[in-house]
């Protein structure tokens, strides 16, 4: 089982969600995070409006989904295709192996609980 953590622009979250469902993902969750990378960041007005400053961090969405190993490529492709703009700041996808999944409602564990 793999955990896919994807960081991308917040306005893409609906597109990514759709794309994931189309790729056969059964569940996921997401949240707002503040992200910093190579992206210049966002320009914010400081003080009372006299200067702007580049806030290096910018708003991103972090989406997490746990999938079976064989879906990895499809899922990565689904996320990339739905969130890529080609500009710096598009985000990253991290893949981690996880050792177990349990479904709270039924208590079932392993692949079938995903």
């Amino acid at each position, binding site marked *: 089982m793999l955990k896919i953590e994807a960081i991308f622009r917040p306005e893409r979250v609906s597109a990514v969600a759709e794309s994931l469902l189309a790729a056969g993902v059964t569940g996921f969750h997401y949240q707002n995070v503040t992200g910093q990378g190579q992206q210049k960041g966002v320009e914010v007005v400081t003080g*009372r409006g006299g200067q702007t*400053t580049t806030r290096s961090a910018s708003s991103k969405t972090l989406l997490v989904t746990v999938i079976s190993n064989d879906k990895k490529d499809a899922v990565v492709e689904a996320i990339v295709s739905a969130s890529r703009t080609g500009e710096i700041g598009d985000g990253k996808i991290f893949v981690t192996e996880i050792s177990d999944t349990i479904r709270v409602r039924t208590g079932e564990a392993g692949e079938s609980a995903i």
Partner: protein
Amino acid sequence: MDSGTTAWMLTASALVFFMTPGLAFFYGGLVRAKNLVNTIMYSFISICVVSIVWVLWGYSLAFGEGNNFVGDFSMVGLNGIALFAAEGDAYPPLVDVIFQMMFAIITPALITGALVERFKFSTYLIFLVIWSTVIYSPVTHWVWGGGWISDMGALDFAGGTVIHINAGIAAVAAAMLVGKRRNPGLQPNNVPYVVLGAAILWLGWFGFNAGSALAADSYAVNAFLVTNVAAATAGLTWGLISMIKTGKMGAVGVATGAVAGLVAITPAAGAVDAMGALAIGFGAGLICFFAVELIHKTGMDDALDVFAVHGIGGIWGCLATGIFTVSALAGVDGLLGGSAKQLGIQAISAFGTLAYSGIATFIILFILDKIPGLGLRESEADEDQGLDLATHGEQGSVNDGAN
């Protein structure tokens, strides 16, 4: 008794009352989220504390006969003030107590913009009592209670010196003594609150300025008009300068500009017409904008720019009153009307207030700082954690399921 005037003075008093909660939101939106409740409380508790001080002795010190410098204790506890209007009174005498009370409440609250995010709340409660008594009441006496500034013939329709210059310079003293914040933030925590606060201030200022006519008459109407024009012009000026400099017109800038315009028109509201208000508003936007920049460079941490907006804006308004005065309204000519005399008088009134309030506030805070158990500043740990939790045991907003 004139029921129309009484009706307007009641309304105006209610409007001015509403300004202090407005200020709470204006200031509250500008700090960081962890100090939001604390900042709101600085204003809100001023309503509670100063209302009591005012009826007990503040009104008497301000409006009692006294001498040129301060009133007396003849009306302690509002003693001797008639409950009913006498023949020939335009309104019942308690109207003065009410209307002026609202001014007394907001003035110290204005100061708190300089000291937010680090000042000790319990010391602030004591400061409120002392500052109202030792500074606010005397300065009010100077201008409206028959003191030296009114004797001199200075024009201060709605309190440019009493409220804004006074609070502005006190803010400098406070910022200097309490010192810089450990880690000032970059962005305001809540821009809608800033706009809400500015809008309520603007609304309330109609009561503040038009109410200062003390009648529902032509002066009140003119004051209402010029108040709106100056605020609008200053807000737009500020926004446009900001747009030119940075490419962006921020809501915080426009709101701050509008407040600067309101400050500047305050002393002039009974003396200038709409075209004068355009000029005063434009000046306020321009001057205060650059005052903010300049004061930031000094390194003084006047957190929410009280001096730049209320101090400099107040001085500009005070002097501008001497420039744009229309004799049809004020009975005297301003510089544009060909006379420099009024301008001189205005300058003296401003500097007198600056000197007294600046020095006296400094002394008060200096002493409070030294008194064991008081002190001006919260602990570093509390400042880091945020004063909402540390001082009030509250959080601005909570939205986790566990609650």
